[in-house]
């Protein structure tokens, strides 16, 4: 059965989104790097758009400015270390209910699940850093400039310095 992308949305919101979000066809330009190693030798990083941050240690994503400027979204990112424990993560995201991910951040950033896969060698390793952004980057024209020119390259540089080979992406 194909997945229904609009299953969980109220009818009127689904109809509005179908009208508003007409993604351009970019399939001809999709880049692709084959995974050339077995999973058991591959080093992974994790990246979510869920708006996770370390409670008491990092600034939340700026949802106050977003409240003043609904067409803007915070483009910055947070590093979530692989040692992070349940209860140490909070969320700043206005577009879904964050209570479940605050209870168990693995539903968005599965650090503990990847450590479980690392232990018996099912994956090579999980890198020291996982990454969190807040996915909403504005509407009707999302502004990806900061992701493309600043924060994306900064995350990529850190991944490279930690010898990351594969990346699990989990939008919220």
């Amino acid at each position, binding site marked *: *059965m*194909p*997945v229904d*992308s*609009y*299953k*969980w949305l*109220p*009818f*009127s*919101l689904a*109809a*509005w989104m179908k*009208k508003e979000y007409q*993604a351009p*066809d*970019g*399939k001809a*330009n*999709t*880049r*692709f*790097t*084959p*995974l050339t190693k077995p*999973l058991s030798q591959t080093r992974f990083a994790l990246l979510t758009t869920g708006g996770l941050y370390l409670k008491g240690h990092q600034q939340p994503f700026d949802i106050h400015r977003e409240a003043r*400027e*609904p*067409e803007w979204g915070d483009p910055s990112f947070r590093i979530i270390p692989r040692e992070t424990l349940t209860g140490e993560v909070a969320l700043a995201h*206005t*577009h*879904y*209910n*964050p209570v*479940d*991910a605050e*209870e*168990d951040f*693995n*539903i*968005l950033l*599965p650090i503990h*699940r*990847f450590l479980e*896969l690392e232990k018996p060698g099912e*994956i090579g390793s999980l890198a020291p850093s996982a990454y969190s952004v807040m996915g*909403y980057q504005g*509407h009707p024209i999302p502004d990806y400039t900061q992701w493309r020119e600043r924060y*994306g*390259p900064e995350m*990529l540089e850190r*991944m*490279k310095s930690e010898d990351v*080979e*594969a*990346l*699990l*992406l*989990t939008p*919220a």
Partner: protein
Amino acid sequence: MFEESGLSTILVTMMPTWAEQYGVPRAVAVEFPFGHPLGLPGHPLMQTAVINDALKVLKEAQGPNTVVHLDHSWPEDEAQWRRQWQPTGASPLIAKHLDQIRAMRPRTTGS
């Protein structure tokens, strides 16, 4: 950005229609409520099942724009979860466009 720099990526999405239109290197689609790409909190077996499916596609995809629809079903009440994933208050974007969104409701006979 990541693929062109030599990383292989796998996306877990609740909106495959966007992935299929825009194009992604590899994706698995799950029919789960927003905010829950890997399932329910406190259910590690459910989370690992989705992760293992994602890793299989990461390993086996032969080329770009590979989108595999998974058949995990949401284990809890659907009607309840159509509300439960939503934020407690409308996001600034939704609040701003609420009149437009309400106008999308189907007209009932006689109105």
